[in-house]
């Protein structure tokens, strides 16, 4: 079976000992640029991948669709379990409890109650 190093060009034909010192150095200087070139290319591919990955992540964060008012409202408010009793008491058809405090309510774009409703 052929020597693998010989096969892939990492060993000179006839082996290292068949070469004199000068020839061996010549052979190394011939091979070194090729090996360095392969390593440089490998590095370039890794850097390109890193750059593409970072740019894609930033881009996908910037282009995230903003959530709709309805979905924010649905997340911010929660229908009360005993709604029926309260609606009967207060005379309103829908009563919600606010979760997440005023900022969540405001973020959901829900209107501020005014006048006599503002106490509710």
């Amino acid at each position, binding site marked *: 079976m052929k020597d693998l190093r010989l096969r892939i060009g990492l060993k000179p034909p006839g082996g290292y000992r068949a070469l004199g010192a000068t020839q061996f150095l010549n052979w190394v200087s011939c091979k070194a640029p090729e090996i360095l070139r*392969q390593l440089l290319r490998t590095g370039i*591919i890794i850097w390109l991948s890193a750059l593409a990955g970072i740019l894609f992540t930033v881009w*996908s964060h910037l282009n995230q669709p903003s959530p709709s008012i309805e979905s924010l409202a649905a997340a911010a408010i929660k229908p009360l379990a005993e709604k029926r009793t309260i609606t009967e008491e207060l005379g309103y058809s829908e009563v919600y409890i606010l979760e997440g405090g005023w900022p969540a309510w405001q973020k959901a774009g829900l209107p501020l109650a005014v006048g006599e409703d503002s106490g509710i």
Partner: protein
Amino acid sequence: MKLRPRLLLLSLRLVLGGVMVWAGATKIFGAAHFVDTVAAYDILPRLLITPVAVILPWLELFVGLGLLLGLWTRSNALLAVLLLSTFGLALIINLYRDVDISCGCFGVDPSRGSLNTALAQDSLLLALALMVLLSRHTPFSLDEYLL
């Protein structure tokens, strides 16, 4: 070089490149899930999980494209060997730990407990990558025309 070995080398390169492109693309479009997959392997320190999950799919994609086009074939094959060896090692560690995690080889993978199958696939691809790396010729490639 005769036509038949040239075609064989071409087909090996195309199969490997195609699989790498497919694996990379599915991970890129399921990036959020891939972070969880990398974390589930429980090998990397927490600090490295996100960078690896961000870069790895693109690396697979570029390596796959390079192999498909035959551009910088040996460098891409070397990277494929390194990637597949790392995946294989990660799979072996988790098989040894006997944990129930998804392989995540092709993005979101609903089938669990398939680490053995994944390891077999990985070994096959690693063999292909080694053949491409060790072959001196890159038939029907851009390397032949450009370099």
